[in-house]
């Protein structure tokens, strides 16, 4: 049915793409832009594996239509850092046991990014609450919490 040309900036790159109205943002990113770092893990908005930033704020891309991102700026895990130019969160997740199977990792990175942008030195409790919209089955969350703490310290040059 209705199709729309959306103008959306993804990871700094401007796109004008025609999408059907029903295309979820998650599918748009994965299937149209081939940014498969954003994962899908549930249909209830609970797992957070599909988390991305829209205009700097974390949302679940499976609870968004691509048309809702028209005129906005989306950041996915691919836009956080690549190659030798990694975000401190990414290196911390590697070094502090913030990941195992890795499926939830992109979502956690985006949620943690949102958290640290609002609260640069969160307590452990604040980290846990800030990540409460994401599920991980491997790590027991401790490695993830430690990683976020570690990244916050790095970002403060401590």
């Amino acid at each position, binding site marked *: 049915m209705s199709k729309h040309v959306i103008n959306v900036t993804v990871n700094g790159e401007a796109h004008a793409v025609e999408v059907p109205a029903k295309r979820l943002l998650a599918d748009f990113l*994965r299937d149209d832009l081939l*940014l*498969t*770092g*954003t*994962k*899908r*893990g*549930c*249909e*209830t*908005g*609970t*797992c957070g*594996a599909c988390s991305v930033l829209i205009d700097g704020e974390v949302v679940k891309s499976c609870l968004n239509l691509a048309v809702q991102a028209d005129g906005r700026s989306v950041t*996915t*895990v*691919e836009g*956080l*850092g*690549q*190659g030798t130019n*990694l975000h401190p969160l*990414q*290196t911390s*997740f*590697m*070094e*502090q*046991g913030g*990941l*195992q*199977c*890795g*499926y*939830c*990792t*992109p979502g956690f*990175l985006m949620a943690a990014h949102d958290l640290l942008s609002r609260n640069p030195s969160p307590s*452990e*409790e604040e*980290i*846990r*609450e800030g*990540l*409460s919209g*994401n*599920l*991980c*089955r*491997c*790590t*027991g*969350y*401790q*490695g*993830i*919490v430690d990683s976020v703490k570690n990244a916050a310290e790095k970002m403060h040059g401590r």
Partner: protein
Amino acid sequence: MNSPIVGKAVPQVTALEKIQGRAIYTGDLKQPGMLHAKVLRGPYPHARIVRIDTSQAVALPGVKAVVTGADTPTRLWGVAHKQQRILATGKVRFAGEEVAAVAAISEDIARDALDLIEIEYEELPALLDPARALEAEAPQVHDGHDNRVKEIRIARGDVEAGFAAADLVHEATYELHSQYPGYMEPMATLASVDGNGRLTVWTSTQSVFLARARLAEALDRPVSSIRVIQAMVGGGFGGKIVEERSSLIAAFLATRVNRPVRLVNNRLEDFQSGCFSVPCRLWLKMGMTKDGTITAKDVRILANSGAYAGLAPEVMLVTAMRSDNMHRLENVRSAADLVYTNTMPRGAFRGFGGTQMAFALNSHLSVMADKLGLDPFEVHRRNAIRAGETSVHGWQFGSTGLRECLDQVQAGIGWEAKRRRPKDTGVRQRGLGMAAAMHVSGNRTLGNWDGSTVVLRVNEDGRAFIASGESDMGQGANTMMAQICADELGIPLSHVTVLPPDTDTSPFALGSLASRVTINGGKAVLQAAQQAKTQILDAASGLLGCPADDLEIDQGVVRSRTKSNATAALPQVCRYHVFRHGGEGILVRATYDPPTKMMDADHYGNIAPGYSFAAQAVEVEVDTETGQVTLLNSCLADDCGKAINPMAVHGQTNGAAVQAIGWALYEHLQFEDGRLANGNFADYTMPTADSVPHLQASIVESNEPNGPLGAKGASETAILPGAPAIANAIEDAIGVRITELPITPEKILAGLRAKREGGHA
């Protein structure tokens, strides 16, 4: 050995691609012409399929194939019991059983087509309650068979005499519920048939070779006509070993359309087709002398296999006898029955039946210790089996870290001081609990081989490739193998590549199950690397004119121990290994098959090369008005023999602790008329970051003689003690003993009410 890498908390070798979002899982794969599959499931727990009409679905534009049970090969597949076809035929035996499947040019069209398939069912009386399964008039899940899947009877020593010798005999019945593995990556498969008719399957699996065997059986075609490649796996926890069904459907569709077909479960579908742990009712009776010595143990189990057998019989065997081996027991008896019901199939899950018994056993020991005025830590210590001993079921222990685990968690939680503090009297009351458990590292059970083969190549640039069929599903197996190899070859970790398991190119392997990969796969890597090193040093000896035993490899350079100027960089040596008469690239193979035995008919025999132990202590706070249980502290020690990578072991320990918390307190499959009513993450609530405490994980290194560098399995053991430790802490807090999982607020409140009323009576 100089170990710059083994024993270090290095990042997983898969970490870099994962944090960039560039790790490729099966659902991320695409191929030209690829179709999308969707599966139609029966809505009834038990019904006869009277008629299926797919004509409208077939006619939908974009639909390329619609298949039903009648189209599938008639050969039955299964683990030991061959009883399933790829899609149901004749009748459905559980709500959610796969009945038809569609391949179409988009997922939406495939989904639309499902609505157009007409199926007429005749509902049959359903057997939902396992307790009724063996009654004469119970509905038969499999026509012409009674509902008993398996019966296990084990008796050793003289149980009655043991009870007679006891100062305290305690019996209780426990209800252990089923848990969903909850891996974050729902099951996904991409299957494709090439122009020669060979089938290639990329799938999320814990074992490519067991997947290939299952595909060969279900599709009724030769093993060698199938290639299974493991994509990155987003968690398994037992559910992706051999009972998983959706890969068969994807592969079957691919053979029908000659186009690649991708089948990615959504979460609801994964709940409906996933593999769940085996629920059971467990009656336990134990005798103990005043000093805490266990004199006898008697167990009766009724376990629910669901509609098919899968690995559930093996799981129940573990429940029936494994925990006996961690103590010096003499008189034990188990009577266990596994029955079919019209519910989803149950089977392998992290801990493999151990969690069920660990809950009962540790609950029991805590109650008995209390009654005898003993400390439960002391009871475990007193009975703990020691290295060098053989257990009642014939298990031989080269290493046992149980007592060290107990010491660590007892100190870590502050047991002594906290136990002495006055009991809380307010609305919220704190309590302490502990539990301990054991698990196998390896298991000679899938046939008379528990081996692991590694093919190791050292390339012209001095860097290594490891080909192994063992699988990394997130637990870090590849990192473990790379670390052992790098250390042995004296090269940096980044110079080792672990190739993805691929049945066409990897050596035959059993895969990630029974905590066998570190002890067996790691040992094979070590042996292969030792061989490669010998070849390298021999070649370098020719090159440098020094005896091989004077040479060593350090940081990628071969050097003489005695002549300071005799050095050759590895690339130079490796090229020399090729470019000489009779030369070749360095390619070695090693197989390690541990010195273990299959159990005999009486379930006796040393099945594993090593046995792992764990202990956990927790502190809880119970809200006596709302029934909420808050975990304040958790201290979990895992005896992994030797931590090849402490960060990975901690990760496994913490992940296991939280999965156990979920099983004990938060996760609860709910059914309505035999249908799963909460098959989604909004209603089946797994632990979140803010629902668990800061976790303490510690490591015991008991140095397993059979293991590579002393290592044995970690992780599965760690899931075992959590739930009973919590139940024990709750009793300590509020004097209410919960014997039925999950521990819901309602049960806490009911327990408190009963206690109050009991007090007044």
